[in-house]
């Protein structure tokens, strides 16, 4: 199905739900739930309970806001924006836990803070995919966001809207993320951890 067809279909499902058809929501939910859960699972590192809470809160917020949804771009971009904002709000509320996490992506590429690093954990070597996933976990939050949202086929323009910054900033973060990932992957492969 072409992207524009998907968007038109999403619009029809939303309109049906706003009229009271819960099966329309079920279809919409089924279409995006795994993507959102995957995104949050990789964004919120080593905290499955938090992932579940943010995931549930995101969909509850979607249910509340759907009657006012006005086809402003793709539904998936809107959905990820809500999920991301809920996550950021939670971080701000838990400043102590967030202090270890890097929120300023304009600095030189850094590895994510103690929350995602467990020096005594034996790293799993082998498949490239696993190594990349581990490296992604160690990215600063905003670089990680950009990288993960690109995995969801969101355009840089959409990511800029989600993060509330310019497209140049997003491109910069993606560039830093890719640089960091290359370095981290080499480090992980060699068996070391960058601090």
């Amino acid at each position, binding site marked *: 199905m072409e992207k524009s067809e998907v968007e038109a279909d999403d619009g029809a499902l939303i309109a049906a739900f706003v009229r009271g058809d819960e099966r329309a929501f079920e279809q919409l939910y089924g279409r995006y739930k795994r993507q959102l859960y995957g995104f949050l699972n990789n964004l919120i590192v080593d905290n499955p309970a938090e992932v579940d809470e943010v995931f549930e809160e995101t969909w*509850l917020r979607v249910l509340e806001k759907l009657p006012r949804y006005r086809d402003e771009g793709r539904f998936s971009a809107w959905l990820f924006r809500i999920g991301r904002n809920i996550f950021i709000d939670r971080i701000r509320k838990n400043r102590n836990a967030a202090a270890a996490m890097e929120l300023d992506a304009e600095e030189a590429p850094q590895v994510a803070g103690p929350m995602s690093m467990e020096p005594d954990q034996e790293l799993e070597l082998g498949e490239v995919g696993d190594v990349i996933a581990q490296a992604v976990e160690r990215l600063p939050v905003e670089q990680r966001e950009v990288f993960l949202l690109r995995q969801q086929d969101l355009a840089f323009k959409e990511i800029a809207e989600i993060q509330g910054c310019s497209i140049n900033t997003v491109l910069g973060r993606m560039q830093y993320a890719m640089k960091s990932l290359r370095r981290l992957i080499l480090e992980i492969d060699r068996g070391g951890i960058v601090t």
Partner: protein
Amino acid sequence: MKNRFENLRVHDVPEALDRRIMAAAAHKAKAVRFRRSLTHCVFTAAASAAALLIAGTVFLFPEAYHGELARPTKSVDSELLALADWSTLEQESYNLSFELYSGRQALAELSSVRMQEEY
């Protein structure tokens, strides 16, 4: 073991989460349907009330009616009066008839008496 890289894009959602979210959606959809039904009933009732009000205004209030209801004319009034007096006239007529009859009867009786006397 599942490739963790695949989980960068998609990840299976626990069933308990699915159930809770779908329950919330069902509750919301039910509330929407109830609100729509209520709005529909309110509009229907308002439309019916408006229609009744218009109909009532047209038929119950004479001022709203362009034509005038028929009112008795003076000649009709006098005719009606005449009808009211007619019972008296009729009575008098009956009385006269009775008296006339009685007179004839009396005359007839007298005649018969006279005839008897002549005999």
